[in-house]
């Protein structure tokens, strides 16, 4: 019982790491969901996913700087990202529909460099601040503090997940996307316009990404190149969870965030990213399709 005295501090430290991990994990989860959406509809890994995030944050910041009210700026920024998603699918993915997987990956990489380049031309290279949505006063829980914006991230994340679930299980469009992801030809036979569905998937994914980009901007700041690393982490989260699984994306994102924070807290901050990447290798070693990935029987 000698350690009992240290317990409250140890607990508050643990809680602190947990809060940190869950907040950043929620961001990863939202990005991973964007990957999942597009992957499901088209089997493309969209390396430009992080750029939607960047567009969301940067457009909101620059619009508010121009005097547009915050809420309107957010709506416009999300709409801009949605258009970007549509344009990406129409102009870059659709014309190359016969290309193989790696080629499509390179196309999305090209697209992400292009979008980043545009953003840099329009908005410059500086980092920008976005104020917290509801004050800077942190909330204290058992000796650990929680940024009020973290609650926004978690709340918006939860709402988006709920909306997505509703969208895919209750709406025709959502079901059409799901049907297309399962069997493109069959979907076409029952009258689903698959190109339309793909476009929708990219748009929804872009909307999701940009909203994520806006809610996290007060925590991470925003700049033209913020999308690279966040996009990558989102891909990692999606792979841990199992590509194509919505539940997997959420679990994968949260797991990645928490592992990073715990590794930084308890192991070594130098190697926290290495710990996260080792975790993926470990997961894939035992579950080659991620935690919740679909088990596919190869047909021959």
């Amino acid at each position: 019982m000698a350690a009992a005295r240290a317990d409250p501090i140890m607990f508050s430290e643990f809680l602190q790491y947990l809060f940190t991990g869950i907040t950043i994990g929620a961001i990863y989860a939202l990005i991973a969901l964007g990957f999942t959406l597009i992957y499901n509809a088209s089997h493309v890994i969209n390396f430009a996913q992080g750029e939607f995030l960047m567009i969301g944050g940067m457009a909101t910041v620059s619009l508010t700087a121009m005097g547009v009210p915050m809420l309107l700026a957010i709506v416009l920024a999300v709409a801009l990202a949605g258009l970007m998603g549509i344009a990406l699918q129409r102009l870059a993915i659709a014309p190359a529909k016969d290309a193989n997987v790696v080629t499509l990956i390179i196309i999305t990489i090209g697209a992400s460099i292009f979008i980043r380049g545009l953003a840099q031309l329009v908005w410059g290279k500086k980092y920008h601040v976005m104020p917290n949505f509801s004050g800077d006063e942190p909330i204290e829980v058992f000796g650990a503090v929680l940024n009020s914006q973290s609650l926004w991230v978690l709340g918006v994340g939860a709402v988006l997940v709920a909306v997505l679930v509703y969208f895919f299980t209750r709406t025709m469009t959502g079901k059409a996307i799901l049907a297309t992801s399962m069997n493109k030809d069959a979907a076409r036979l029952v009258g689903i316009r698959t190109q339309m569905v793909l476009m929708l998937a990219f748009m929804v994914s872009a909307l999701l990404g940009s909203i994520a980009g806006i809610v996290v901007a007060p925590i991470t700041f925003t700049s033209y190149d913020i999308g690279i690393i966040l996009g990558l982490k989102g891909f990692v989260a999606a792979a841990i969870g199992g590509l194509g699984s919505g539940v997997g994306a959420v679990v994968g994102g949260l797991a990645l965030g928490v592992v990073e924070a715990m590794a930084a807290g308890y192991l070594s901050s130098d190697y926290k990213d290495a710990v996260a990447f080792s975790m993926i290798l470990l997961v894939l070693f035992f579950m080659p399709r991620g935690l919740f990935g679909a088990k596919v029987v190869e047909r021959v």
Partner: protein
Amino acid sequence: MIVKLSEFRLKGLVFLAIVVFALPLFISNPFHYSLATQIALIAGAVVGLNLLVGFAGQISLGHAGFFGLGAYFSAIMTSHYGWSAIPALIVGAFGVGIIAWVVGRPILRLKGHYLSMATLAVGFIIAIILNNEREMTGGPDGMPVPAFDVFGWELSPFGQYSLFGMDISGDLAWYLFAGVVLLVAVWLAQNLIDSPIGRALRSVHGSEVAASVVGVNTTKYKSLVFVISAVYASVMGALYAHFQGFITPAVAGFEFSILLITMVVLGGMGSTIGVIIGAVVLELLPQVLADFQEFEMVLFGLILMLTMIFMPKGLLPTVANFLAKRRSKSAGGDA
């Protein structure tokens, strides 16, 4: 009717040799040699990566990790432990091969994007280690690398040498050396491809099931090609380090991994000469675009995107296809 087995087998190699040795007639500037040397060394690594990606169909998004390991091993052994460059290069390649084998066995069971993810993770871990182990690697600011030496004789881009009684500059000497290394790399790769092993590798790409039912142990061959491509990367990385004289962990970084695989895809997966063209294009492009300053990034992204949309099979295969079609059309017209 029968057999055109080896008739035109090395057509590409001969073409490449002509280009490599004719280039000094057309470029007139040490900077261009330096660029060409660098391209040749990176192209060598890309030829190795193509064995894995283009022929065996296994994606690696972490190949720069092996390039970086080779570069740093040679740099560390030659500068901290007084090794000579050649043994450092060989031992490094051997070590990287073993690492690739150990890592490759489990991750090559993965398919598609999961394999991409795993290779990406391996590359990242390597880059993180190189970045953090400051004592050995100099950390993120990098470390200087001694000149390449062979039995006490130094090859430095700044030296003056004589070859067959002629004076040549260090830049030209390095260029010729790198050119020959690239030719050897291509020759070995071609030999590998045109062999039972190469067929087995390509069949893993074409149809893994078909390969397995005729007795190809696909796991073994995937590991083998992973190791070979890692060794290619390691050797080229070591030479690159000695040529540059200074390296930073960026040589093992994610961006460089992406650049390497982009060279393969842009040039034409599965075409040895094609991927070299990919390397040339992607190394020269930034030099050309440098004059566009702030538009560089937009243009680079746009060019990459458009090329891949309109030439999804890559530059060389698309051009070759186009020429073949035209030829058959005009032949048809003659008949």
